């Protein structure tokens, strides 16, 4: 019954794939239940997500958010910490990005502002993660509960700030003034136009490159630094980490701050890129999707990019689907997301014993034949 009976490719390749397929099969039954054709729905989702330029743009724009939040959840997961607070950290991080952009946007162009915006967003997001982390490490309160509470506190705080303080004078909607055009991130359309290529317009902006860079950074951090080693060791066995001289409390706090800072990069994509201002609920559930992404991607940057792309396609394709089939809305994507979390997360161990037995049987039935050939 140990892990050793299964080779790595089954453990990290086949089992997660089967789990994802199960999630999709159950989603198919949900579509059948509401009287629509699942295969037709899949076709609409695929063409909506990848069939034309604007669709691809939207898909990659959603993907960018999910990469950030997925990485954030995965970093904490490696230390055995379950950070449900990505939503709140991204929200507060976006506030940091917005405040920095609005105070400097008339003085400098976007490329000079970007490092400041990243620093401010990361600082705000990390600060929002710091309190639960400190309470977990030094006061013994559970990180899951405190990060849930902090999501709600963040949401109330942002409503208060946007309605009462940051609201653009004369505007009815609770949102800030827009950031000066020269200080917002160039969209992919502008970038490609500068290179002489013409692509369709979408909210996709150069944050995608930042997201991919973050993937490399997280990979380097987790597997090629002392800190990453300490983080993974705490996740593997906290007592062993203590005995080997790691200051676990300190590392837990640092890990959560990295996680919070990573979530906050959603603010770069949304506030400085797509929306060009801070508005209510701009995170729109990306923090929770990050949990599904991280579980599905097995907490590895490569897996996270693949899972983010899948969820990006589901979000965009789901929007398209709701235009085509009137009885289906984007809430179907929420159902799929819940099923992915259920099968890839909570039930991830369900199939392991069966597959182990199957594998052992296959191996033992193969062996005599090999011997016979020799």
């Amino acid at each position, binding site marked *: 019954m140990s892990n050793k009976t299964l080779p790595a490719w089954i453990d990290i390749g086949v089992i997660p794939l089967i789990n994802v397929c199960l999630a999709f099969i159950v989603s198919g039954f*949900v579509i059948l*239940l*509401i*009287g629509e054709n699942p295969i037709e729905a899949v076709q609409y989702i695929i063409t909506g997500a990848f069939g034309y330029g604007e669709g691809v743009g939207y898909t990659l724009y959603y993907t960018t958010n999910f990469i950030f939040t997925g990485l954030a959840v995965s970093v904490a997961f490696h230390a055995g910490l*379950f950070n*449900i607070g990505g939503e709140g950290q991204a929200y507060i991080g976006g506030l940091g990005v917005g405040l920095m952009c609005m105070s400097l946007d008339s003085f400098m162009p976007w490329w000079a502002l970007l490092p400041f915006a990243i620093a401010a967003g990361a600082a705000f997001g990390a600060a929002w993660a710091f*309190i639960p982390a400190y*309470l977990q490490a030094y*006061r*013994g*309160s*559970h990180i*899951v*509960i*405190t990060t*849930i*509470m*902090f999501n*709600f*506190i963040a949401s*109330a*705080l942002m*409503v*208060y700030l946007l*309605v*009462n303080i940051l609201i653009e004078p004369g505007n009815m909607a609770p949102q800030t003034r827009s950031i000066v055009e020269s200080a917002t991130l160039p969209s992919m359309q502008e970038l490609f136009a500068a290179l002489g290529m013409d692509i369709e317009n979408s909210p996709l902006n150069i944050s995608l490159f930042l997201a991919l860079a973050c993937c490399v950074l997280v990979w380097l951090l987790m597997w090629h630094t002392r800190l990453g080693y300490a983080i993974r060791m705490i996740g593997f066995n906290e007592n062993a980490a203590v005995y080997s001289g790691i200051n676990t409390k300190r590392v837990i706090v640092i890990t959560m701050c990295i996680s919070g800072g990573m979530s906050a990069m959603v603010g770069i994509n949304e506030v400085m890129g797509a929306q060009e201002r801070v508005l209510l609920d701009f995170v729109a559930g990306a923090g*929770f999707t990050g*949990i599904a992404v991280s*579980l599905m991607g097995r907490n590895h940057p490569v897996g996270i990019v693949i899972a983010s792309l899948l969820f990006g396609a589901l979000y965009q394709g789901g929007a398209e689907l709701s235009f085509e089939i009137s*009885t*289906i*809305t984007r*809430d*179907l*994507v*929420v*159902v*799929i*997301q*819940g*099923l992915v*979390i*259920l099968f890839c*997360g*909570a*039930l*991830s*161990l*369900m199939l392991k014993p069966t597959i182990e037995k199957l594998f052992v049987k296959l191996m033992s039935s193969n062996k005599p034949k090999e011997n016979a050939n020799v």
Partner: protein
Amino acid sequence: MSDFLLILVSTLDSTIRVSTPLILCAMAGLFSERSGIVDIGLEGKMLAGAFAAAAVAAVTGSAWLGLLAALAISVSMALLHGFACITHRGNQVVSGLAINILASGLTVTLGIAWFHQGGQTPLLSGDARFLAIDLPGALALADVPVIGTIYSGLISGHNALVYLAFVTVPVTWWIVYQTRFGLRLRAVGENPQAVDTAGISVFWLRYRAVICAGLLCGIAGAYLSTAQNASFIKEMSAGKGYIALAALIFGKWRPKTALLACLLFGFLEALTVRLEGVALPLIGEVPPQFMQALPYILTVILLAGFIGKAVAPKAVGVPYVKER
């Protein structure tokens, strides 16, 4: 003076109405967490229950059939939670989260497909709802100063599920502290090995605990959509499951203190409505957002160990592996 009494009575009256789903969910969480199963899925089970109750009540015209449907759906979600975390030893937080997200998506998806009202269910009236019950003598006593006002304005005039919610608290206390099942339930949340050694099935005990949680969340859901409101509305649980979880922790996993925490959080919510646009002496106008965040802030402060100490059941969140 009588004005003040009237305002107080009406604020407390709405406190009771707002607290009812919190109390039911907090007791649900108590059963589950005392047995060692973390339940952040209170929210999802309540939401699914609310949808089931409103949908069935709308079709059949009976609030009681709606309640049954809510119980059935909520218990089956609880069993799913149990299947993932007890049988397959999955992560309990992940499973609870999956249930919340699933409920939030499924209720709207099915609601739109079945009722074509943008995720709402048809408006309920008459027997399809739990209506207010006037307790005996409430009308006759209404004119009696103080006692009459309190009796007819505060205690009488709620629907059946409100009274049921207040009954569940002593019943929960009795089950958890006075019965053999309760003793074992508490033991399995503290030290499952010991319970197993005594020849009692840890799995079956925990399954019964999550079923209890499912039943209570189902009632809470039915209350939301067929008693407090007259239809299911998208995301109508609006974080109440999480507030109930906070109240459970704030009440240190005990029925009586959890009830007080629910009433406190309910009172804060009732007060928020009352204080909107009113300038208080010295403080001025309190932002409603601050009042909304207060339950969460208080819980975090409690968890940080600044007001007493909240000690969770020892084995909570740890899947039990039977030794071979």
